[in-house]
């Protein structure tokens, strides 16, 4: 017979979480021996790059959107932001190639794959809104070109790439929130299911 405490939402949530993701799965101290290739480092590299992207973005946010045009330090922080983004995409694409050739969706890991693809799209959107929020010639050109693509889909009615305020908000609030939340889900799926085992070779 379940007590009142057992029926509480909080108790149920805690039990489900601990059952699905016990601490030794969340923070494991061993890995299956097949996890031994350089290809495995690109996931964590992508995560690390995301951390640097967010950190440098936060520094840029502290001083506002025009600071980096006016100060040498600001320009340097902008350079850090740009190059961490380059590393982020670089690592993410190699991670994607690697996971594809391992067919890493096997064994009930489909949602890990799907969240990864959605994360890639979110990142492209975050990168794009960053490019159009630069407040320089690059953002003028990119936004006036990209408007035709977005308008053609009907998206222009709600997503106006020529509106700096709107793009900056998407870039520094909405898309980072989405990216971080999706990353958390993606990593939690990996921890719950573990790293995909090798194909069985028929001898």
């Amino acid at each position, binding site marked *: 017979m379940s007590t009142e405490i057992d029926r509480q939402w909080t108790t149920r949530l805690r039990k489900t979480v601990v059952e699905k993701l016990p601490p030794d799965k969340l923070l494991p101290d061993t890995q299956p*021996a097949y996890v031994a290739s350089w290809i495995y480092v690109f996931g964590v590299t992508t995560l690390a790059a995301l951390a640097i992207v967010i950190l440098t973005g936060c520094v840029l946010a502290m001083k506002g959107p025009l600071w980096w045009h006016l100060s040498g330090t600001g320009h340097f922080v902008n350079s850090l932001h740009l190059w961490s983004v380059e590393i982020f995409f670089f690592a993410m694409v190699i991670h994607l*190639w690697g996971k594809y050739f391992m067919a890493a969706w096997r064994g009930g890991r489909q949602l890990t794959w799907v969240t990864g693809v959605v994360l890639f799209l979110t990142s492209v959107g975050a990168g794009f809104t960053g490019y159009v929020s630069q407040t320089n010639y690059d953002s003028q050109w990119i936004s006036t070109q990209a408007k035709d693509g977005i308008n053609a889909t009907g998206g222009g009615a709600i997503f106006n790439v020529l509106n700096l305020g709107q793009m900056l908000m998407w870039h520094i609030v909405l898309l980072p929130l989405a990216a971080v939340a999706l990353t958390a889900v993606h990593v939690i799926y990996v921890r719950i299911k573990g790293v995909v085992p090798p194909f069985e070779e028929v001898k």
Partner: protein
Amino acid sequence: MGLTGLLGAVFNLDHVGKYIHWGFIQLSVSNAIVIGLMIVTFISALFLPFPGRRNRKEGK
């Protein structure tokens, strides 16, 4: 100098870039380098021996 010197670019990329034309493909040299590096990195990751493997053999 000092900080400002350090913060300036060692290689100045503020000039019109070079572009590769292969048939209908047009690619900036910088993008080509980035894409080339990605492919090289991917292939190296597949082929280079991963350290730590020796430990395991000697271990259990």
